């Protein structure tokens, strides 16, 4: 151990050397970028691609400019938080470290998954970088002690979708009021989103006087759904609620339900099963096919809004495909960022750091009303949207060339309950 003394010196030298690096520039760069942080592997790629398209469409429609600043979303600004084919919190946090360390980025749009957001918010918050999620619906990200634990500085995180705490209850209200069913069998996929939305559904369903015949859960690795649905059948539910997404078993459960004779009662699920028409590969309607005739889905955003037709047409014109999933929400997030940037520039920031902070302050301003493609929106001090609209879709078996498609039914606005 003779060398220990030297190694200590060497180590301290290394530390000093390392600490010298980095440091932001004191100038103001007018070529700025919006970072995008989404999973782009496996099945989640299908959800992230439309969001990225929506983001780029919004930048393009703004002419790529805000004042005398150019705004771009180059491929180098698009970060992938998937590892081994599925979203990964560690990778997300690592990406966020990269993003906050680069003064070119004034804001970040993403992520897709709430569990990734939990690892990212501490980083983006400490750096004071505006973060807008087009798809996180977990309530713990914004409100309550759990959310506070993620933050060390003033809030920097907003989202344009409502939380599961709104989407689940909307499903419950629809089943009881519109479909007239008084009892339900609930099954979730044991994952963050699925369980959360099923929890809030269950609470609301009970609060409205409905009967929950059974609350079940089956992880996505379950093999034999027929046995589970046989047990459900014996409880004679008037409807079925599934908390989860197609990839974690939505269609499998419906197929098994149809097989045991539960095919004629309403099957209601969250936006996770509203993933395209029967023509879309891997989608709920494609897999469930004829069994989906009594399926309904909720979507945590307005199904019809003033700018919807325009957005859809623009999207189609730009990319040659229909907009799906949260494309409109990706667009909306980017509108928020660009709007905040405009107001930030008006405060005459002198450095990159000042601009970033000004964008954060403007973006999270709870008194400001945004005019987005989805309508007029404000964000509360936690970053939650004022737009508590959940839209309901049913299945039109004749849609999409007879393969079945989702058909907008109605929307429920929890704000005017």
């Amino acid at each position: 151990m003779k060398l220990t003394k030297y190694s200590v010196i060497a180590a301290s030298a290394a530390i000093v050397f390392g600490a010298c690096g980095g440091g932001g520039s004191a100038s103001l760069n007018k070529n700025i970028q919006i970072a995008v942080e989404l999973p782009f592997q496996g099945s989640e790629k299908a959800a992230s691609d439309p969001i990225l398209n929506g983001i780029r469409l919004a930048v393009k429609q703004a002419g790529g400019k805000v004042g005398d600043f150019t705004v771009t979303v180059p491929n180098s600004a698009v970060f992938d938080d998937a590892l081994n084919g599925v979203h990964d919190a560690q990778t997300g946090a690592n990406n966020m470290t990269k993003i906050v360390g680069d003064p070119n980025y004034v804001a970040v749009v993403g992520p897709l998954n709430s569990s990734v957001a939990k690892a990212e918010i501490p980083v983006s918050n400490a750096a004071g970088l505006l973060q807008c999620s087009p798809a996180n619906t977990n309530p713990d990200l914004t409100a309550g002690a759990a959310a506070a634990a993620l933050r060390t500085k003033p809030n920097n995180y907003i989202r344009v979708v409502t939380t599961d705490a709104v989407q689940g209850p909307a499903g419950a209200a629809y089943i009881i009021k519109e479909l007239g069913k008084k009892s339900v069998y609930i099954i979730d996929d044991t994952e963050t989103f699925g369980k959360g939305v099923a929890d809030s559904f269950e609470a609301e369903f009970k609060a409205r006087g409905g009967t929950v015949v059974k609350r079940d859960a089956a992880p996505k690795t379950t093999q034999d759904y027929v046995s589970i649905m046989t047990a459900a059948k014996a409880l004679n539910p008037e409807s079925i609620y599934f908390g989860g997404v197609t990839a974690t078993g939505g269609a499998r459960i419906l197929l098994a339900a149809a097989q045991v004779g539960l095919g004629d009662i309403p099957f209601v699920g969250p936006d996770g099963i509203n993933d395209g028409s029967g023509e879309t590969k891997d989608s709920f309607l494609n897999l469930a096919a004829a069994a989906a005739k009594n399926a309904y889905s909720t979507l945590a955003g307005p199904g019809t809004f003033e700018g919807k037709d325009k957005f859809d047409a623009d999207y189609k014109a730009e990319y040659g495909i229909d907009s799906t999933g949260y494309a409109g929400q990706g667009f909306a997030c980017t509108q928020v960022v660009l709007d905040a940037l405009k107001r930030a520039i008006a405060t005459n920031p002198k450095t990159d750091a000042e601009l970033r902070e000004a964008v954060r302050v403007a973006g999270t301003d709870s008194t400001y009303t945004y005019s987005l493609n989805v309508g007029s929106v404000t964000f509360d001090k936690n970053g939650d949207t004022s737009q508590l609209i959940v839209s309901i879709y049913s299945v039109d078996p004749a849609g999409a060339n007879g393969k079945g498609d989702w058909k907008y039914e109605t929307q429920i606005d929890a704000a005017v309950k």
Partner: protein
Amino acid sequence: MTAIASPAAHPNPLARGLRMTAIAVAAVIAYLVVLWMALSLFGGRTIDAAFPEALQQTVNALSIGAIYALIALGYTMVYGIIELINFAHGDIFMLGAFLSVVFIGGITGNNEAVTNIPLLIILILGALILTMPIIGLLNAGIERAVYRPLRKAPRLAPLITAVGVSFILQNVALTIAGSGDRRAPQIFPLDWQISVGGAEISILSIFIFVLAMVLMLGLQAFVTRTRLGRAMRATAQDQEAAALMGVDANQTISLTFLIGGMLAAAAGLVWGLRFGYVRFDLGFNSGLKAFTAAVLGGIGNITGAVIGGFIIGFIENFAAALGYARWQEFLIFVILTLVLIFRPTGILGQHSGDRA
């Protein structure tokens, strides 16, 4: 040394068969009664309502158990003959399921049930005749390419190779078919049911059970009554002695992989018919459960694997029936652990020397 069980050694095969059948029927009835009681005591059902439900669940358990048993046979045979846990066997099953989807989907072009009975039989038989040899040959080919060169290597080497092969097969399926569920055409009409004791029993589950039984009895007959089967048993017992007696060990081992692959392919076909979907990672959990079944029955033992498969089916079904589906895997692994600790030779296994 484990060995593929040799029921031919029994003085009276017919009596043994009858005894086994009686035990099996008694076990199924016992499960039915236990489930019936459990449902009415803990499930909140009335005793009258619980019976048809329990009956239906028992049939469900036999269906899924039959699928596990078919897969487990591949594990047990391979282990019996070269003492390798063929980690990739579950993925062979998955590829079998995919191949039958491609075949049936390619011919029917849609997902609709085929009510024309002769046509249905032709389709299913055709799918079996096509997929079983292809998947069997694939399995044997894998053995030839990567396991055989390692037969004399330290034991860890082929095992790690098998893990690698498993990931290759999964990711090949992932690359070709994508990561989501794929629709499997349910050509067997699901509304064909018969009413028994107030329960609606689907003909499909009976078909799955019968098909699995036919294949397993066929295997049993092959192993006990043919020259090649005898060579297989001999190789399992003592490879070198068998070689001295003129048995071609390589050929026999290839044959074992071939048969294991064929049975897995059949399991894959009925999987698609029953559950209506296939996915690239289907083989991982199915494989684990089937392997557990093989260990439970006594690895290396053909009858044991079948029994183990059904036991796993029953355990899984029991959890689902009482609303604890999310604990299924937990239960199965706890049982695996307990079996390995207290009776590592399994229910029917012979004593194995290497327990150090």
